[in-house]
Each structure stands twice: as structure tokens, then as C-alpha cells.
């Protein structure tokens, strides 16, 4: 093992370039899609991929100024310094590299490829990517994992090599080689992680290899008798749904990141899809998982709807976050495409009323495919994202609607909130369900607010992720975090978390009032998932805004836990939230996970350090030394 700053030439340029040409390295999503502020000072969304693409959003600028106190002259663009290989010295394991070459696996050691796979999309990671200050400090030995979460940006490192296996067998071979040559593997799917799960541990002395699953992207078979499909782990959600649709099927799993996230990533993080009410979350969809571990392949020998065979081994792989092995193939349930797909929306006089309605819908189990309630802050934000009315008549209609809602129905514009609905199924069922849902909404003071508003709400879901990059250009840091809680705690939890965040902002000297907003995105029998958006303008702040942001998010998570919320509903634990894992699942629970990890990966090849599992590993190694 030796450290060297001169990387080998890349044998397979085609693969890496393909992805890099399409996706941003230091921001969200496609390169061609983003929010910009045009010369005349209006906000626009460019690119042709989304519903609002190409529209001028006339009222958004004034919203930005009002809600976040943005000064358009205060610009904080990303650093465009050219990155050189010298910036990121490589820890090389020559014998591993030689074996990889011999086996003819596609690989790359170019700095762009390594950077792209060294981070997910938490604020801290993106902000590092924007300033380009990842660093690898090889051989610093073992420091405590606790310290890691709070390391300064300069101490976060990037991977040393990227490999692109093309099949399950190639993965198996790479994992065996890694064990043989003691090389770290970090599986990489869509790279949309928001838990710092992809970050490399800076004290890792071994070579770190990113195993990119993007070349394993086939639907291996579709079983239309039993409605199952076997999919390779690297398939992205969007491609999967498109291809299945050609056969008249869908999985119905639509997380907000579905354009980029992969089937393997879903399983590894316990993902949740927008339409889980009909199709289920990933753990409900999975029939069979094939995982390559250091000790061999772990899988079941049958594809059955249910099995009683001791504790379910799938449950160890679901949510394992890359610490146990590489997921290579997954069999998912599929269903025929729905006959009808219909949007809808409801207005409620207050968030409390909205939650009460959602609760009742859940009691009756008459869920639409998706039902989401956004609070007043987000409602007004969504209003600001409307493009300008195309005609005088339209604007007149808008005013009339506004008058009716606020004056006649006396909804308080400072309190009212909106609920977006998506119905799927046969025509009859959808009609019946619609009627039922609107009736329940009426009982809680809600009123129907049209299909268009609903559809816009769901389009915005995909676009909203692009907004952070715009904010970062103007001194605003923002991020989302989520949780799940029992029904009777939802309202109190939301209010208390908002209160705590505002209080922490004041305490930490944030100069402008923060934007903190929430929405209830998933409903269950006994509780719901709550999603928070939090942004603040750091203009005038003396210290590093990212650290301030992290302090506040940590305080918010403390508050969530104190109010009966969970550590995470679907983002996962990663390294960002590992400090709360032991409290969440008890120390015994963590030790159990460590024991499993010890068996499956004795050399700690999958050393991403997620779920707080690496500590015992380093202890193990230490004790061996």
C-alpha cells in the first residue's frame, strides 16, 4: 500500500463522462435545469424537463426578499477553481488495482469521478463540493467516530478509485479482491443520500473504492403471472417506471428523488415512496434481495409472499446503508398501470384542521395514492412559485378566488394551508374515493381547491430540490429533515420544532428570521411522516453558516425525539444521525447490529461508518493489533 499523487490513466472514459455530462457535481440534479435570476431581476426556471421549466415566476423574487430577507446584491457563487489531481492525493493499493485491471473491470481514478462519488446531498456536503475543499489525510489512524460528525470541512476526504461492475458476478469478484487486498468499498447508487452516508471516514488508512452500480441497470425479467420483476440494483426509479410502463406495469415506488436514486439505494436506506398508500414502502414491495457480503452472498431460496423462517434476513439488509455488503439484484412486486390518475387539492383554515382531516382519512383507511398537507409557510411559498397569469381574465379569476376564500369563507391567509391529493386506480374507485375524501374534508372545514393546484404541488416536489442551489448563490443555507410520529403528537411536534429552531437561530446569532416550514407527507394507521424545510439567510453572520446550520438541525432533532418523533422516517441514519441511534434502538440493539456486521464483514471492508457500526470494528482491529 502506498500513497501516490499520480493516478493511472482512466481505461473507461465513456462511462464516467456520460454521467458527468448530465448531472451537476456541486448541486442538485441535471446540469441544464436550475433556477436563475434573469437580467431584469425575475426568477426563472430554465431547462425543458419540468412543468415550470421556462416560466417566469413573477412573485417569487419578492417572496424571497420578504420571507428570507435576501439581498440580491449579496452573491455567494460557487468557487470555479479548476480542480487538479494534486489537490486530492490518492491512497493506492497497487496489487488491488492490478487485479481489477486483470479482471477487466471498468475503473477510473480521475479526480472528477472521485469527487462526484465522495458525497451525497446534505448541506454540508454540497457546500464542500461548491468550495471544492475535500481532503484526504491518509494514515491518521483511529480517531473517535463522534468527532467525525463535527469535523471541519478541510478534514473530509474523497474516494481513491471508482469501479463500475457490470453484473452480480463482477461485484462478487471485486468484493473478494477487496477482502484479499484489504481495500474499503463504499457502494454508490444515485448519490442522493442526505445522511452523510457516502462520506469517507478521514481516518481511514486503506484505499477507498467507490463501487458504482450504475452499469447494473437492467430489468432482468418481468413475471406477469405473479406480478414480480427482477431488477438490477443500479436501475434508477425513473428508468424503471418508464421501461415497466412499456409492458403495462409499474412498481408504484416514487420517492421524490426517483429521477436519480436507484433500486439498490432504496433497499439500503429503507426508502418510502409518495404513493405508498397503494403500493407500499420499499419493505412492502421487496420479494427477494441478493446481497454480496465479504463472507459470500446472502439471499433467500424462494420468492414467496410471506415466510416464517426465523427473523427475516431481509430486515438486516433493508436499511443497512452500505455497511454489510452490496445489494445487486432485487425482486419487486409490480402492478398494472392504473386506469385513472387524478390530482386534487383541499384548502383548510388551519394546519390543525388539516391534520385532523388526515387523521380521519387514516381511520377510514380511505387514503388516496398520496395525500400531503403543507403548512401555511409552505402554502405561501408555493403561491409565490406560480408563474404569471397569462391573461387579464385569469388574474381576475385569481382575485375572485382569493376574495372568496379569505373574505367569504373567512380563511386567515396567515393560517390556512393546503392539502394535495393524488388518486390512482379504476375510474369507479377513484370517483368513490374522491367523494369520500372531500366529504371528510368538509367535516373539518376544508374546501376543494382544484386539480391544477394539486398537480402543481407534486411537480414542485421535484423542482424544490433545485431551489437550494439558488439560495446558496445568495447567502441562504437550507435543508430538509424528516421524522415520523404518532397522530396525537404531530401538531405539537411541528409547533415545538419550529419554536426550537427559531429560538436556536436567535441564540446562535442568525441575523434574519429563519424560514421553517413543515408538511405531513405520509399517513399511516397510527401516525404520520413529517417533513421539515429549514432555511436561513446567513448574511452578516461571522462564523461558518454550515456549522451553525448543523447545530440548529441537531437541536431540532433533539426536539423531535423529545416530542415523540423518530430519528428518521426514510432518509436513514448514516453518519449525520448516528448519535441518536443508541437512544433510539437501545444499546443492546446497536450491539446486535454490530454482531451481525462482525460476522458478515470481519475485515470491515464496507467501512462507510454508517449506523455507528464502525466503532466496534476499529476496536476489534485495535485489539487484534
Amino acid at each position, binding site marked *: 500500500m502506498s500513497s501516490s499523487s499520480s493516478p493511472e490513466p482512466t481505461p473507461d472514459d465513456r462511462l464516467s463522462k456520460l454521467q458527468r455530462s448530465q448531472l451537476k457535481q456541486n448541486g442538485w440534479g441535471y446540469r441544464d435545469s436550475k433556477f436563475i435570476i434573469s437580467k431584469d431581476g425575475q426568477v426563472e426556471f430554465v431547462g425543458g424537463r419540468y412543468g415550470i421549466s421556462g416560466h417566469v415566476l413573477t412573485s417569487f423574487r419578492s417572496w424571497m426578499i420578504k420571507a428570507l430577507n435576501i439581498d440580491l446584491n449579496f452573491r455567494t457563487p460557487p468557487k470555479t477553481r479548476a480542480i487538479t489531481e494534486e489537490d486530492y492525493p490518492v491512497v493506492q493499493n497497487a496489487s488491488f488495482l492490478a487485479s481489477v485491471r486483470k479482471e477487466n473491470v471498468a475503473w477510473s481514478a480521475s479526480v472528477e469521478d472521485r469527487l462526484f462519488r465522495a458525497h451525497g446531498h446534505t448541506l454540508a456536503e454540497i457546500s464542500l463540493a461548491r468550495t471544492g475543499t475535500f481532503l484526504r489525510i491518509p494514515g491518521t489512524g483511529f480517531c473517535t467516530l463522534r468527532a467525525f460528525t463535527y469535523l471541519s470541512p478541510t478534514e473530509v476526504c474523497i474516494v481513491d478509485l471508482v469501479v463500475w461492475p457490470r453484473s452480480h458476478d463482477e461485484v462478487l469478484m471485486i468484493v473478494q479482491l477487496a477482502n484479499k487486498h484489504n481495500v474499503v468499498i463504499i457502494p454508490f447508487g444515485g448519490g442522493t443520500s442526505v445522511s452523510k452516508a457516502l462520506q469517507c471516514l478521514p481516518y481511514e488508512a486503506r484505499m477507498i473504492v467507490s463501487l458504482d452500480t450504475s452499469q447494473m441497470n437492467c430489468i432482468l425479467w418481468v413475471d406477469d403471472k405473479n406480478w414480480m420483476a427482477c431488477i438490477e440494483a443500479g436501475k434508477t426509479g425513473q428508468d424503471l417506471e418508464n421501461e415497466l410502463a412499456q409492458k403495462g406495469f409499474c412498481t408504484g415506488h416514487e420517492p421524490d428523488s426517483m429521477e436519480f436514486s436507484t433500486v439498490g439505494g432504496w433497499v439500503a436506506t429503507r426508502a418510502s415512496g409518495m404513493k405508498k398508500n397503494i403500493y407500499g414502502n420499499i419493505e412492502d414491495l421487496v420479494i427477494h434481495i441478493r446481497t454480496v457480503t465479504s463472507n459470500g452472498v446472502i439471499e433467500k431460496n424462494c420468492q414467496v409472499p410471506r415466510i416464517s423462517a426465523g427473523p427475516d434476513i431481509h430486515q438486516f439488509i433493508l436499511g443497512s446503508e452500505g455497511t454489510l455488503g452490496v445489494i445487486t439484484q432485487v425482486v419487486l412486486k409490480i402492478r398494472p398501470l392504473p386506469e385513472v390518475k387524478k390530482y386534487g387539492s383541499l384548502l383548510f383554515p388551519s394546519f390543525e384542521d388539516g391534520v385532523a382531516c388526515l387523521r380521519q382519512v387514516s381511520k377510514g383507511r380511505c387514503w388516496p395514492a398520496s395525500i400531503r398537507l403543507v403548512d401555511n409557510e409552505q402554502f405561501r411559498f408555493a403561491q409565490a412559485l406560480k408563474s404569471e397569469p397569462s391573461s387579464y381574465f385569469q388574474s381576475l379569476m385569481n382575485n375572485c378566488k382569493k376574495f372568496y376564500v379569505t*373574505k*367569504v369563507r373567512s380563511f386567515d391567509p396567515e393560517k390556512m394551508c393546503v392539502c394535495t391529493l393524488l388518486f390512482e386506480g379504476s375510474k369507479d374507485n377513484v370517483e368513490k374515493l374522491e367523494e369520500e375524501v372531500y366529504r371528510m374534508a368538509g367535516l373539518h372545514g376544508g374546501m376543494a381547491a382544484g386539480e391544477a393546484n394539486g398537480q402543481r404541488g407534486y411537480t414542485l416536489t421535484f423542482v424544490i430540490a433545485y431551489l437550494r442551489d439558488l439560495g446558496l448563490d445568495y447567502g441562504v443555507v437550507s435543508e430538509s429533515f424528516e421524522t415520523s410520529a404518532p397522530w396525537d403528537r404531530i401538531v*405539537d411536534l411541528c409547533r415545538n420544532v419550529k419554536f426550537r429552531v427559531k429560538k436556536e437561530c436567535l441564540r446562535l446569532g442568525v441575523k434574519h428570521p429563519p424560514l421553517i416550514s413543515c408538511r405531513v407527507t405520509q399517513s399511516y394507521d397510527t401516525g404520520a411522516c413529517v417533513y421539515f424545510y429549514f432555511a436561513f439567510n446567513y448574511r452578516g453572520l461571522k462564523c461558518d453558516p454550515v456549522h451553525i446550520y448543523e447545530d440548529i438541525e441537531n437541536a431540532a432533532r433533539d426536539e423531535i425525539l423529545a*416530542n*415523540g418523533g423518530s430519528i428518521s422516517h426514510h432518509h436513514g441514519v448514516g453518519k449525520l444521525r448516528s448519535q441518536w441511534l443508541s437512544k433510539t434502538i437501545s444499546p443492546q440493539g446497536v450491539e446486535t447490529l454490530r454482531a451481525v456486521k462482525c460476522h458478515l464483514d470481519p475485515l470491515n471492508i464496507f467501512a462507510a461508518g454508517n449506523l455507528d457500526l464502525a466503532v466496534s470494528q476499529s476496536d476489534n482491529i485495535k485489539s487484534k493489533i
Partner: protein
Amino acid sequence: MWISSLIDVVLHWSKPYAVDDAASRAQIVDQLLYLLAGLRPDRLLHHLIEVWSSKRAVSMDWTGITTCQRQDLIEELRSVGDFRWTVTTQSSSQNPSTIDSEELKKRVMQSQRISDVIWMLLVRKDEKRSEAELQSEVRRILEEMGHKYSINYIRLMGLILIKTSRRMYEHIWIDLRSVRLLKSLFEEKDVPVILMPTHRSYIDFLLISFVAFHYGLPLPLIASGVDFMGMTGVGEVLRKAGAFFIRRTFADDELYRTVFAAYIYHILHQPQPLEFFVEGTRSRSGKSLYPKFGLLQAAVEVYLAGRVPDIMIVPVGITYERTVEESLFAKELLGLPKPRETTSGLLKASQTVLTDNYGSIWFRCGAPISVRDFMKKRVDRAVHNTSPRNRFKSTVDGSGAVRDLALQVVAQQQDLIEIHDWAVLASVLLNRLRTTGTTSFPVDELVGGCQKLLSALLLISQTKDDRNSDRRFEAKNLIRCTKIHLNILQLDSKQGTLWIQQSHLSDMRTLHLRLAHYRNHIVNLVAPSVLFRLASEKSQVESLNSFEFLKQLFSREFVIPEISHDYTNVSGEIHELFSDMVEPFLVGYAMVLRLLQSDAVSVQTSFASLRELVKSLQGDMKKVLDAGVYCGFEILSSDLISNCVQAVKCLEGISVQNGQFQIDSRIVDRINLQFLSLLPLKIVFQLADMSASSDLHVYASGKI
């Protein structure tokens, strides 16, 4: 067209009150539209009246107040007409859409918590009542408890108050910083505010509402004891003024406890602040009482259960230069039975009360305590996550934190008490009475003594008050005090002598206790440093232990801050002054401890109740004092005796077995010896004298 002409009319009406800026104009237009669209002419009228009257409300630039500015409310009230004040002061901003009192009860009735507890009681074997009976019981409790807040009644009471207060009081000094503080607290809508005033008089019930009314703050809902309800009519009037009633003890009544908790929860969820007295009852002695925790516990639980993001607690200090119940309190403390509160009694009392001059009242709020910040390090709210929310069970941590919080509130209240001239004079008089035995005093000497004590007190006082720097006690201060306390004192200005009124000479015990009431306003300022000095006479290591011991022994008597204060800057001379003030407490405690010892003749070893024990001790002490060696009659105060007994109980000198209070003589002996070893020789000799001259031979065994 007609809308705009209507607006013109409105503007014309309100011309003197200047609705000139565009913003208010726009607001009015907006509101009018809103009202018209709602087709509610009644609201329109109501709204116009509010726009009109709010302009007349007290307007003041709150941002300018930085130093300790204060305002005389009486002075303020002289400048406005009584009737107009009662009608218009209440501005629209301070009368937020409160929950109707009946609606409040309904919400409690229908709450999950109530149905849950009923279900829980029903499955119990020993529960005889049926579901319907339990429900009607809940309704009955709520009827007994619930307030009937009505702004019109408040106005009516305001009218009466403004008339009477002007006659009774010379000044009501309001600390303007406090008002500004309250104003800013009420702006945070989600966070309930609890006002926790000191409790020295029935006037407390009205005063805060009175002040709030004047300054346009939301009026509080006030928790009171059920004993009030016995007064025909008065209970109802208080209910309408926002009072609600709580039984004194209900620890064993599961149903009552739940209804009570649910009621507090709903009160904290509406815009009016909650007001209650952490001391639980009026302090007869004039000194802070050891706090009661029940109500605070119920309020804090609302936060711990996550139902509010925070609670702001505002300690309030109210100081009376002359307490209306002065003589009544003295009698109660001497063990004469407390008269039942009746309406006729109140009316009778008010005839005499209304004609007297009661001097000044000082009103001041302390730094608000955020319950969230206070609990942060002490309690983990997450422990309640795994049980249903309506089955909140308090934890050991939680109860401990509530106790600390209550003590902190009381400690802060102490600092808010005004060091007024009369308290200083009363302390000096009490000393002279005790040491010299005479009942007439040369004015010059008194003024000198008062000035010395006042400057010493101001030196160690915690409150940073600019006015204090050049405050002096002069003859005119004494004359003023005498005027207000004509019932006790008599001034012969020609001879320059101050006399005790003849009528009091026959009953020195009551006189002592009346004076002690005012001395006690300030005694807590000096007590910790005196105790510290007592302990530090010992060697270094021992002194710490001794101070801990004294803190424990006097834990019910004085509020001694947890943080180790620096008492070393108190000079010897000042210490002398201070120890004179505290001396009766030391003597009193020594005597109680002595009487608790096994060889004291008349003491039994077990008692059915604490009260009985205190009463027996009080009787014995009377006999000892009758011998005439010691003149500090205030030690007969049942408050002092019961505080001492409670502390001994905490130190395990008294235990409760089968409902009987047993005295453990071995432990009492130990406590007594340790305490005696710390006392100054002067006091020890005095105690010896008392024992020698006592006919009862209480001290016969010669242990001292």
C-alpha cells in the same frame, strides 16, 4: 361611494385620536370590507367602538424605558375620569378571542384524559360509582372549579376598585420595566405566561388584574383556594373576574386530580395568562412561605408532555407598606382561630378598612423564567414517549425539577420586595422593644438606627435600583411612616419621642408579631449572611458542613440560594445589625428543639397531626415566655414553630408512623446539640436564663 363616506364619518369621530396615517386608514377599510362581507352588523358596531376606544388607551413609548423608571398608578388615575377609565382603557389588543368559560368546561368534559380516567376508575374493584355518576361528578367538580370570566364584570369591579384604591392608598408604584417586559412576553403567541406573585394580602387577587387592565395587558385567570367560595356572592364576583377555585388537598382523589390537570392544560392553551400564588396561601408572617408544588407541577407537565413549546414564568413582587389584614394575621399566628371567610365579615371589615390610609404599594416583575431552559438539563421529555399522552406520569426527575423551579421563583420574589422605610423602622423598633423593654423612643436615636440599617441593606441588596444610591432615612421618613401606622404608633413631635399606642401595651405579643410582619419583608435579605457567619466561626472544613446544616434546619424559614454566595464582604458592624434582626429566629428554633427533647415535661411523644404538635409547642413556649426573661414574643408565631418542626421532620427527627407523628428523641438531641454549638454565647446564656427562671422546669435537666 358610500363606503368611503362611511370611512369619512369614522375618521371624523376619531379625529382627536388621529387616524391619519395611510396604514390605519387602509386597515379600517380592510376591516370594514371584511365585516360587510361577513354580513355581521353587530361586529361592525363593536369594531368601530374598539377603533375609537383603543386610541384612548394608554399610549407610551416603551422602547425608551431603560433605567428603573416607575409610575404612580394613583397619580395616573387622578388624571382620568373614573367612568371613562373603566369603559375605555381596555383596548382591543388586550382582549384576545378568549375561550368562553363554558366552552372551556365543555372541552375538559370531552377531553380524552377525562374519559380515560373514568374508564380506569370503572375497572377498579373498589370503585362503587357508575359511569354516569362519575361523569356527573366531573361536571360537579368543573362547576366548583370553573371561572366565569366576563369583561363587563371586570369593568364594574374596576370602577369600584378605582374609587376605593384612591382612598386607601397614597401611591401604587409600578415598575415600568415590568410592564414593558409583560408586553413583550404576550407578543409570543404560542408560549403561555404564568404570573406568580407573592401573596401577602387579599388585595393581591385584584391588584394584578387592575394593573393589567390599566396598561392594556391581557387579564389573568387566577387560581384560588376553595375557602373563598364560602363567601356568598364574593365567590361569584371573583369567578367573573377570572378566578377559578382549587381544593387545598386532593392527592388521593384521582378523578379530581385529572380534572384539575385537564383544566390547567386548557387554560394554558388560551391567550390569557394564568396567575397563581406559589406560596399557596397568604403569608401571615410577611416572609415568603415554603412553596406548594401541585399547581406548578400541573403546569410544568403541560410543557413536559410537549403540549406547549415553552412556558414563561414571571415572578412578581408586591410589597404593601401596610397590610390590610395586619392584626388578623398576628392573631392567627398566635393560634387564635381564623375566622371563616364570610361576606358579612368582609363588609364589616371594609367599613373600617376604607377609612384608613394604607400608604404605598410597590409592584415589580422579575426576570421571566423559561420553563424550557430550566428543564433542559434536568428532565428528558422523551421518557414519556412510550406511554399514551393522556396517561402522563410524573418522574422523579420531573418532580425534583418542579421543586427547584418553585424555590427559584420564591428566591426571585424575595429580590423583588421593596426595602421600604417602614420595614426598616419596624426592624429597629422590634429590636429596641426586645432589648430595652421600654415603649417610648427618642426620634433622633431611632432615625440614626434606621439610617444605619437602611444603608447596610442597600449595600447587600440584589436589586440594582438607581433611586437607592441617594436614599437616606431622615426624620421626615419616620413621620410619614408614623402617619400610616397611627394604629400602632404615636408621635410626640414636641418632645421628639415616638410612643407605642396605649391600646397595644396590654397585648405585647400581638404588637411584636405585627411589627415582625414588616421586618420579615426584608429579613431574608440578611438571613443567609448571618447563618453563614455563624457557621464560619468554626474551622474551615467544619464551617462548610455547619453551613449545610444550618441551611437544612432553616430551609423552610429562609430562601437560601443554591449558588454559594460571597458573604465575606459583610463587615463586623453590619453583621451585628443583621444578627439582631435574625436573633429571634435563632432563639425560637433553639427553644422548639429543646421542647422537642424527651425530658421536656409536657410534650407527648406522638401526635395525630402536625398542627396538634405545633399547637402543643406553642402552648409550652407561651409558658416559658411568661416568666419574663425573654421579650422576643414573635417566637410564638405558629409559622416559625411549624417551619422548625417541618425541618426537623426532613432531618428525620420526626417520623410518621400509622398517621402518628413520632418524635425520635435521639436525633432531636443530636440536632439540638449541633445547633447549640453554633449559636453565639450571648444567645446560649439567654436560653440558660430562660430555662432557669421557668417554673415549668422545662430546662431542668441542665443540658444547656
